[in-house]
């Protein structure tokens, strides 16, 4: 559903990423790792058309991103749930309304959707925080709210950027459990992280591929991970 064909990316200076060819298949589970500044966030942005490759081609749901107009990008985004690195929310809306935002935007704001929302909030353990404003949440609560928002329209793929970046071990395990559960529902999951412990813990539970960015290229990591 997301396919890279010899993709390169440069912010204007030298190439940050180059020669990337890979495909995210439905139901696959990927980790993306590499040192800070390696280009993990950049790679994910290429995956959801926030950036367009400066070389090669990215295809989303069998359409080249170069062929997508802004409405086409919006449509693709509704099929890709993104957990942003800094979890952006609309601070004037409650947590529940923020989580439901993709439904609102898709015009799916009906009765059934509201039930799904309650279920989802319970699933990420945020029922008691539903009416809070995003700035009042802790780091872990923000991550979980962002995850809930990313999956509420039941997207085909979930991209999470450092989802355990500022939460403790126990919370990162809970988030991982949520992502594994989504994967079992058939959704492709990609997690960018440099948290090796998280990767090891996941590999004991799921058939995950670990990609590493090194030397501007994305490579399959060795068996040590």
């Amino acid at each position: 559903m997301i396919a890279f064909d010899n993709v390169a990316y440069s912010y204007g200076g030298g190439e940050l990423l180059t020669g990337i060819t890979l495909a995210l298949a439905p139901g696959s589970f990927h980790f993306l790792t590499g040192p800070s500044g390696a280009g993990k966030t950049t790679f994910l942005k290429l995956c959801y058309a926030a950036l367009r490759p400066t070389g090669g081609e990215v295809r989303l749901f069998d359409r080249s991103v170069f062929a997508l107009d802004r409405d086409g990008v919006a449509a693709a985004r509704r099929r890709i749930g993104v957990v942003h690195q800094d979890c952006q929310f609309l601070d004037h809306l409650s947590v529940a309304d923020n989580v439901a935002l993709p439904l609102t935007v898709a015009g799916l704001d009906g009765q059934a959707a509201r039930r799904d929302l309650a279920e989802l909030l319970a699933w990420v353990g945020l029922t008691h925080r539903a009416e809070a404003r995003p700035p009042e949440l802790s780091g872990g609560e923000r991550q979980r709210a962002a995850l809930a928002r990313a999956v509420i329209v039941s997207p085909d793929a979930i991209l999470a950027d450092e989802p355990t970046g500022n939460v403790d071990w126990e919370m990162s395990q809970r988030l991982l459990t949520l992502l594994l559960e989504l994967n079992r529902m058939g959704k492709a999951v990609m997690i960018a992280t440099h948290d090796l412990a998280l990767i090891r813990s996941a590999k004991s539970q799921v058939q995950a591929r670990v990609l590493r960015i090194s030397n501007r290229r994305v490579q399959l990591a060795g068996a040590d991970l």
Partner: protein
Amino acid sequence: MKGLARQLAALARGDAAADRVVPPAGFTVRLTLFAAAAMAFLAVFALALSLAAGRLADRWGEELARGATLRIQAAPEEMDRQVAAALRVLETTPGVSGARALDDAEQRALLEPWLGPDIPVDRLPIPRLVTFSETGDGYDAAGLRLRLSAEVPGAVLDDHARWRAPLVAAAGGLRLFGWMALLLIFGAMAAMVTLAANAALAANAQVIAVLRLIGATDAYIAGAFVRRFTARALAGAAAGTGAGVLAVALLPGTGDAAGVLTGLGFAGWHWLVPLLVPPLAAATALLATRAAARRVLRDLA
């Protein structure tokens, strides 16, 4: 235009959830309220001016067309001969039509307010009146006077309405001026709403980024802003129109002596015309915000 109708319909239907994605209030919204109210107030005055000037032009134009009178002063035994001579002269004067002498009953009606009923019109040495109207380019007043002085010595030409011709033109100009002022008012309102919408869109760049991240289309994002500004413009314009109509209604003394100043106001069904101001203000705001949103969203892409 179809898009406009669709958006107005969507506005009427309302979309509470979608509207809340844009943070509430902020100074831009108050600016829009105030600008719409002030402009609507001014628009009501411009309308009143246009419509009153139009009425004045029509009335004066009619009086002008109703024409002139010939007053014939003569000894009773001379009168009929002179009236006949005057009619003959008028009939052969180019640019004159419909010449006829008023009969006793009409004369009495004219004099009654001054002299009371029961005036023996036929026995008083009062002048007889002959009325006629101008056609085409009008008649040559100096030439007519010359002929009359030769053939009907007792006749005095009264072309009083003629001096109003430049006033009719002036009233017409005033009406045009009023319509132009209206256009400018709506143009200025569009400019102010555009500025306010641009400011709101810039202030909410972060909100727009979040909405885009979760797959909101440009139309959806623009719609949220458009509905907000259109609703505010409508509310502000309604208040301004109400205040303007009230102010016009409270203007002192119209009455029969309507001139430019005392006649400024609405008459009859014209009172309904200001009802058009709020919807026009809303449509103006809708188009201005939509254009601003489209531009900003394109530039943010």
